[in-house]
């Protein structure tokens, strides 16, 4: 008896040690990948012709040279790389070219939470639109509402955020009750529209994957056993069919994080939200390389962290799936 308990304990310890090593590797990969991505950007930035100061306003080559020297851009690329790496390690990310004497870290600290909140809300709203639609479509595929919902969700795939954002603005502005004109309600409505614009492509992708997973769930061997229990239909579909899909969905939808952050650029530009996308787009227009590299670190870190979470959730959710699919 004591031997069995000891063996079980040692197995659990071995499993936990494998898990912790895997988790440590994945966590270590995040800064490494962010650094590699920035290295790539840095190299591309130096290889392609052009300079941050080669603008129409700065025509004098002497002024350009002075500016390049002031920002340390006249040094060899590898010196600049080490200098930038040192600034990243110290947490300052260097100084912005566009906003003089303002550390990039301050700009990022202001913009990152806005984009994260926007992306999270868009994910929630998109899932709230997609999951009931997917259940309706898979439950009664021949129903008119299901056909309509299927067509609507498929067509949303062809409406990227830079199209949906101005269109939503147009639709709301042309209604008789123009809420945008009201200074108090206007900002709230605009934020709501920004979330909605960002959530539409998410809804389309979540809908597709949920339909696939739901069809797999109702084709699984445990589904007839659930059906034989005479449970209410709503409960069967929502608790068992959809519940069994959630862990797999989190894994398949992780790549959406990159799309959300990319889509946020258009949405934040249209609605003038001070997020990471807006900052990145503005930095790109003004060739503000330190800000772009800093924003790249934020984007890559967010994407990798979401992917790690998505990889963890199915494993954690396997216990939940065991509860959800009792057969």
């Amino acid at each position, binding site marked *: 008896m004591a031997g069995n308990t000891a063996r079980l304990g040692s197995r659990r310890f071995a499993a936990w040690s494998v898990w912790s090593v895997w988790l440590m590797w994945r966590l270590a990969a995040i800064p490494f990948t962010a650094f590699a991505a920035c290295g790539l950007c840095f190299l*591309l930035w130096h290889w392609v012709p052009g300079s941050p100061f080669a603008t129409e306003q700065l025509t004098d080559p002497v002024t350009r040279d002075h500016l390049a020297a002031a920002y340390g851009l006249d040094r060899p690329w590898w010196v600049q790389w080490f200098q930038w790496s040192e600034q990243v390690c110290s947490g300052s990310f260097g100084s912005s070219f566009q906003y003089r004497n303002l550390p990039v870290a301050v700009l990022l600290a202001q913009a990152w939470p806005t984009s994260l909140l926007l992306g999270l809300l868009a994910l929630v709203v998109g899932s709230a639109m997609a999951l009931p639609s997917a259940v309706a479509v898979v439950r009664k595929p021949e129903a008119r509402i299901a056909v309509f919902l299927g067509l609507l969700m498929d067509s949303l795939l062809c409406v990227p955020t830079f199209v949906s954002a101005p269109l939503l603005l147009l639709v709301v502005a042309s209604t008789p009750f123009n809420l945008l004109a009201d200074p108090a309600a206007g900002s709230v409505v605009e934020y709501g529209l920004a979330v909605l614009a960002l959530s539409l492509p998410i809804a389309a992708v979540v809908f597709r994957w949920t339909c696939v997973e739901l069809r797999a769930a109702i084709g699984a061997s445990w589904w007839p056993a659930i059906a034989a229990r005479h449970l209410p239909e709503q409960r069967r579909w929502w608790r068992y069919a959809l519940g069994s899909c959630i862990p797999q969905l989190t894994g398949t939808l992780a790549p959406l994080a990159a799309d959300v952050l990319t889509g946020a650029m258009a949405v934040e530009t249209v609605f003038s939200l001070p997020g990471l996308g807006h900052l990145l787009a503005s930095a790109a227009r003004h060739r503000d390389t330190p800000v772009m590299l800093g924003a790249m670190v934020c984007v890559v870190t967010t994407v990798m962290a979401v992917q790690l979470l998505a990889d963890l959730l199915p494993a954690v959710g396997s216990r939940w799936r065991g509860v959800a699919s009792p057969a």
Partner: protein
Amino acid sequence: MTRKLTLFVLVLAAVGPLGSGGDGYAVDWAALDSTAGALHGFPGNHWLGTDELGRDLWVRLCLGLRGSIVVGVLALLFAALLGTTLGALMGVLRGVSGGLVDRAVEILAALPVTVLALVVISTGGRGLWPVAATLGALGAVPVARAVRVALLAATSAPYLAVARIHGAGFWEIARWSYAPAVGAACGTACRLLLPQLLVAEGLLGFLGLSLPEPGMTLGSLLAEGSGRLSHAPWAVATPAAAVFLLLLATRSRA
């Protein structure tokens, strides 16, 4: 249906500008005078009216559609060429060099393509070739992965041993086994990639980082139209409809 839609979009991009004059930069002074610089829709000569500079919006829409298609297809060609080469290297190379190429492609796959493109184009400058080359280089990753998998499957196929016993040489096997497998994988990956490249290009255009003037794409037209929502809603609605049609045609083919 898909073919008809694709054909319609291509015809619109090719001959659409001829329907209303053909020059997206020609200023119609009469149209400009009649409204004192304001936008007006659907008069006889201009199917979608003119903008505040008296330029025909229909012609600009068709030219924008043409610009988007040209950039997207060029980027796709770059992606196909680079992706096939990289994928073949990944399939053939073994050991440290193969591992290095694999890891480099994996790192590239973890990055958002549009954000990387934004960083490169903002410094390297706008234009047809820089935008197409950047988008193509960054979009080559899925093609490379598909080609690599196809090549690995093709090289380990059991019938190759029989073919070698019967005296088939490397080039003969490459022609009849490797090339069709790689071609099919590349074609499938490219079909899936084209809508993504069009969306990425549209976003770059919307942010003002795609083709510089006098070039135009649907993204830049949408950005232009966004500033005229109150007095010319069709300046946004028509490029939006064109983006929808273009993506519908390419996505349904995928």
